[in-house]
């Protein structure tokens, strides 16, 4: 919990345009954001505004939790005269001392956009007085940085107690408020390591959200976006060998299954034996099927078959001339070759027909894959797969069931159609 007085530099120096649009305007933006962040971080935080230039330093707003009053006061600022840093600091301290809620820590945020005329010794004496009264000071130096550097550093050193004060120098040509976002000025007490984290990092992340959506505002949307992104990545990995090809390959394809297939194929690569690739790919396919079915997913086998068919279609053209000693150094290349070869096996003759035969394939393939006898023979030919294994049996049975269920549903549907 904190009471803050923001000391605004409204001297003639701030008319300078080296911080777009002007020093003064960029400062006003930064103050608005800072006040918003401070008041948002804790409902009991208060922010006041004090102008340092003009006839006298003037407290425009005593520390208040009302953001509207602060923004309003910033609107009415006039640029005039030169800053009186020494008395501004003392007035700010007085405003803080008489805060309503004594539990609040005291903080001054000092914007310096003009040369400091006070001599160093006096400035440091003020810093000591602030420190003695438990006032922390954040300094933002954004113009005349070089000539002020020495005094500000001395000031900071004198006022700093337990690392509660900070000096942020923002070079010309940058956007002041953006530079401040990531700085300790915006990371309130706690961000630095003491007290409770009252995080104002929210402001800092405002532009940095992964999908341009604030995950805190709409967690479901963010989750959906993330899931779809991951699926897309899995798809790209799975179909890596055929970029630009039809992406039917992954429609509904279980990402885990694809990953398994990739891993297995990848593991077999060094051997380079086409037959082994083939067998492993079969195994991978079987595994992916198992996984799908064991999970009792609604995805019917035909989807997988569709996917396989599409894969073949994609690869049909280069496949014909695929020699075994072809340069097989890329894993994706190998995977594709393995897939093609597996297709040759699964759909004897059909694969060679190329794209032209694509339309007929899905039916034929799903027939093949749904045939338990064929499946078990395929599985039996795989190394390390026991057809009598209960899980394999379960998978086979469930595929049977699914098929009959599907046909039942089809029948029911057609019945309905008929009644209509």
């Amino acid at each position, binding site marked *: 919990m904190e009471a803050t007085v923001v000391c605004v530099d409204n001297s003639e120096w701030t008319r300078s345009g080296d911080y777009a649009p002007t020093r003064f305007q960029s400062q006003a933006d930064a103050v608005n954001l800072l006040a918003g962040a401070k008041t948002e971080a804790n409902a009991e935080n208060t922010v006041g505004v004090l102008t340092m230039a003009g006839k006298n330093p003037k407290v425009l707003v005593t520390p208040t939790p009302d953001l509207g009053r602060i923004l309003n006061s910033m609107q009415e600022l006039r640029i005039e005269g030169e800053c009186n840093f020494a008395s501004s600091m003392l007035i700010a301290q007085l405003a803080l*001392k*008489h805060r309503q809620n*004594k*539990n609040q820590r005291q903080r001054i945020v000092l914007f310096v956009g003009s040369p400091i005329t006070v001599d160093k010794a006096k400035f440091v004496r003020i810093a*000591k007085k602030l*420190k*003695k*009264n*438990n006032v922390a000071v954040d300094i933002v130096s954004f113009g005349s940085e070089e000539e002020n550097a020495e005094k500000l550093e001395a000031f900071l050193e004198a006022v700093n*107690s*337990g690392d*509660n004060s900070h000096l942020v120098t923002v070079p010309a040509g940058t956007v002041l408020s953006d530079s401040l976002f990531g700085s300790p000025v915006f990371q309130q007490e706690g961000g630095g390591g*003491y007290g409770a984290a009252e995080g104002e990092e929210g402001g800092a992340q405002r532009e940095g959200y992964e999908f341009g959506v604030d995950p805190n505002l709409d967690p479901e949307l963010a989750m959906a976006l993330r899931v779809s992104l991951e699926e897309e990545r899995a798809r790209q990995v799975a179909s890596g060998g055929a970029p630009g090809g039809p992406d039917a390959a992954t429609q509904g394809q279980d990402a885990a299954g694809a990953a398994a297939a990739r891993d297995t194929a990848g593991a077999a690569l060094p051997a380079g034996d086409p037959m082994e690739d083939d067998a492993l790919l079969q195994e991978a396919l079987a595994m992916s099927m198992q996984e799908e079915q064991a999970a009792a997913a609604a995805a019917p086998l035909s989807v997988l078959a569709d996917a396989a068919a599409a894969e073949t279609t994609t690869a049909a053209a280069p496949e014909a001339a695929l020699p075994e000693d072809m340069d097989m150094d890329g894993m994706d290349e190998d995977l594709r070759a393995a897939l093609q070869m597996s297709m040759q096996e699964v759909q004897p003759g059909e694969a060679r027909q190329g794209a032209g035969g694509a339309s007929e394939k899905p039916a034929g393939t799903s027939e093949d894959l749904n045939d338990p006898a064929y499946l078990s023979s395929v599985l039996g030919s795989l190394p390390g797969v026991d057809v009598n294994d209960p899980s394999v049996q379960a998978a086979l049975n469930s595929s049977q069931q699914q098929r009959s269920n599907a046909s039942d549903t089809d029948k029911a549907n057609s019945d309905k159609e008929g009644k209509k």
Partner: protein
Amino acid sequence: MAAQTDLLDLIDWSSVECLNQQPSHPVSNALKQGYREDDGLFLESDTDDQLLIHVAFAQAVKLQGIVIKSVDTEGRAPRRIKLFTNRASLGFSEAADFTAVQEFELSEDDVKEGKLQQLKYVKFQAVNVLSIFIESSQGDEETTRVHKIAIFGNSGEKMNVSEIKKQGEES
């Protein structure tokens, strides 16, 4: 006069404030039970040897005595003490200038053994905030160290809300 007790339990900790303390040696080291009995833990001033401690109470209390103890042997024990009542926004400049409700000087032996200083009971009635201003240290050193502060008095009349009973419920 009611028996005097340690008013530790009546201190409103969230409103206790100490100006010019070192963050690594906070006021709780001198005030809180357990901490203040430990001679290894102390409250130390930061920029100079002055300390200003505002002790707020949960209710108005009557004060009878105060113990300020420091086992420091290098002249960093507190010497000149000023006490103010109910001035929550007292600062160092006011504390130095204003007339205190009571002020006294501690001898080296007093602070070492933590001798109880009797307060003018009539002047410390209905105290909500006691401000302890330690103006200087024994040897005018750079910093002041305080190991224990204990405040004695009595709580006066207390109203316990749970004891309030509804009137005329039976009729």
